[in-house]
């Protein structure tokens, strides 16, 4: 999978590396700002109230 992505990235080594880092950061940001905030209230381990 990762080898395949690496081959698909265009340009010389430096460009590939830069693109790879940008892609990785993009995935992390997507998780942190969209996926995790959406997921978290659906999990059970952060309940603090009695009801």
């Amino acid at each position, binding site marked *: *999978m*990762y080898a395949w992505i690496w081959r698909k990235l265009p340009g010389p080594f430096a460009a590939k590396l830069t693109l790879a880092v940008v892609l990785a950061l993009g995935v*992390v940001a997507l*998780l*942190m700002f969209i996926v*995790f905030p959406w*997921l*978290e*209230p659906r999990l*059970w*381990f*952060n*309940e*603090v*109230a*009695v*009801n």
Partner: protein
Amino acid sequence: MFAPVGKSGTATKETAPAPLGKGGVAIRTAGEILITLGLVVLLFMVYELYVTDLFSAGKQSEASDQLNGEWEHDRTLHPELIDGKAFARIHIPTFGVDYNFTIQEGTDEAALEVGPGHYKGTSLPGEPGNFAVAGHRVGKGAPFNDLDNLSSCDQIVIETSTDFYIYKVLPYDDEIEDWAGGKGADPKCKGVSTLRDTNSEDGGAYSETFGRKVVLPSQGTAVNAVPYKDAETLPKAQQAALLTLTTCHPQFSAQQRLIITSVLTQQVPKNQVKDYGDLLSKIGEA
């Protein structure tokens, strides 16, 4: 003795690995996906423990500024309770002079992200009954992270637009028996009683009330006007003015709830003290 190493060497003869077949590629890809998922789970832990703190800190300071602004303009006795909006502030001197969080109305996720939240329908600060507040223990600013470090008679200060209400944590389970002759005699425990009715065999209305208790999440009666008892147990005028804090227990788990209950011992109008620091020096905490 030493054979040359490298491309031209004879000791290591490099042969390119045989190209993977379809099965090999599938196995490698599955492995990569599993490693990736593992990293995502780790990242989620980082998010829970640290990133939510950052998000909540921003929201908390915004709520705090807004509350200060409102209090400057308007000193009404009874705050208007709007879902998710701050109306009071909690200080716990034991956790440091700087420890303070705004208390929001409601205990839903949005309110608790800002800071501790007031259980809707429970009493307000200073009132007879039970002023009940829930707060996160892990992530989201973790306002109630250290609640298990409190001991009986530790002070909890609730600040409203007009007053400081000073509550003290009630005696713990193992201190009740010998309270009057034991820890209760300590000057810092002034105003703290066991709330037990000595005329009644089972201890009366507050027989189930302790400074610290661990209960199941389903035990909603912990925030009743008389904790763990029906509403009709005592008429409102006879109820003690309690403050109950709830959070998850043990830390990092939601199996149980930690319940800290304290009793109102003093009310200090804000016009009698300069600020919170001045209050602390008067109540012997600074």
